[in-house]
């Protein structure tokens, strides 16, 4: 029987996880029709579908904990919340920028998922461990794809290398927000529900630095993203949420 404090913490954790996937998935979907290669256009659309599917999984677990309807609650979270109520990391709501930025951001997130899901698969909270196992199969593939591109662009032409380095300089500090915040609090760690953020951050930054070095990319010595609270957002999120919800808000009672 879960205590209220643990339940509340777990709800915050699941909401943040779902929002991360949803917002990044939405950004991924914006490449549809615009990617530099037809094959990558399809690949990014697949990535978007996967991420949004993962969001649905996290939101469904949240619905169960809050004793809400599994089918309608995720839709309400996505289509009826105000932008300020989203709890995604800031890095993920930034506009796609160039191909290098999108690819690099996706790589950093995919590596974070690989490290995190590996541990979450051992969660003492069974629905969480099951979800993690299911999601990690797809994340393994995402990581394979995005790391392949980061390497090629990092070691490619002078232009691709420059754009990759600029992308890394911008994304790296912000990525640290993934490992901070009250969403991952001690109650959850002590209960064995989620891995400690400190452990994840170390594993992630070590693996990322090692890989990026092989791509001849310099990792900045800046982790300032840690200080950004998840309820703080950029104006970019307002635009994103407006567009994402525009059709649903035309007729909230419509059946799909």
């Amino acid at each position, binding site marked *: 029987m879960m205590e209220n404090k643990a339940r509340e913490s777990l709800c915050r954790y699941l909401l943040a996880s779902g929002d991360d996937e949803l917002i990044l998935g939405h950004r991924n979907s914006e490449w549809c029709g615009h990617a530099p*290669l037809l094959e990558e256009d*399809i*690949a990014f659309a697949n990535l978007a579908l996967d991420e949004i599917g993962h969001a649905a999984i996290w939101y469904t677990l949240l619905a169960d904990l809050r004793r809400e309807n599994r089918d309608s609650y995720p839709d309400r979270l996505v289509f009826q919340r105000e932008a300020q109520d989203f709890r995604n990391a800031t890095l993920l709501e930034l506009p796609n920028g160039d191909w290098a930025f999108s690819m690099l951001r996706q790589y950093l997130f995919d590596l974070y998922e690989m490290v995190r899901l590996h541990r979450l698969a051992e969660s003492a909270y069974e629905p969480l461990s099951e979800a993690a196992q299911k999601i990690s199969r797809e994340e393994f593939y995402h990581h394979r794809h995005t790391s*392949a591109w980061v390497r090629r662009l990092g070691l490619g032409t002078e232009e691709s290398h420059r754009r990759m380095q600029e992308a890394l300089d911008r994304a790296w500090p912000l990525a640290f927000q993934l490992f901070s915040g009250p969403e991952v609090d001690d109650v959850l760690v002590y209960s064995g529900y989620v891995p400690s953020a400190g452990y994840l951050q170390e594993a992630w930054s070590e693996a990322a630095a090692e890989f990026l070095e092989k791509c001849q990319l310099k990792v900045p010595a800046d982790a300032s993203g840690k200080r950004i609270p998840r309820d703080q957002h950029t104006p970019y999120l307002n635009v994103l949420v407006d567009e994402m919800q525009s059709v649903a808000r035309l007729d909230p009672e419509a059946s799909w």
Partner: protein
Amino acid sequence: MGMTDTQLPRFQVFLQETPDSPFQDVGSVHAPDAELALLNARDVFVRRPECSGLWVTPVTSIYARTDQELAAQGGRDDPDEAGGQIEESYIVFAKQKSAGSQVMLGEVLAASPKAALRAALENFNRVKAFTWWVVPARDITRSAPEDTESMFAPAREKLFRQSTDFHTLTAMRSLQKEPRGLGAGR
């Protein structure tokens, strides 16, 4: 014309639906190299769940002959010029139905693409095909058995890709039954 092709190299993609079925040509992808070609092939071609293996090969590695070309040469191919090379494995594909695609028949050992085709015609002499392809086995990049979980298994759960999951017809019928006019339902 002097047109420069700025596209990346093209790779032919072969897909195996089940572990017991033959690899078949499903199309091609452009990619910078074989590794990305394999990943792209998965995203472009593995939409439905039936996939247990994926191969890619540069299109330049395919030696192809149509039955008409072979007939014009009296059923045999041009003899090779150089001899004494080392034999290696070639994968043989044939297209037996005009509306079908290249399907793997098997392997032959040969010292060159032309020799491989000759060997294929001998080995598979009961097969009547529109086109024959031979590809050096070492030019094929293959998905690994351990890739199944991450590359192919997820498609099985994505039922929304199956036409059986499209409820458009049902939805349209129920919409047509409802009395509707301007302003109805608002």
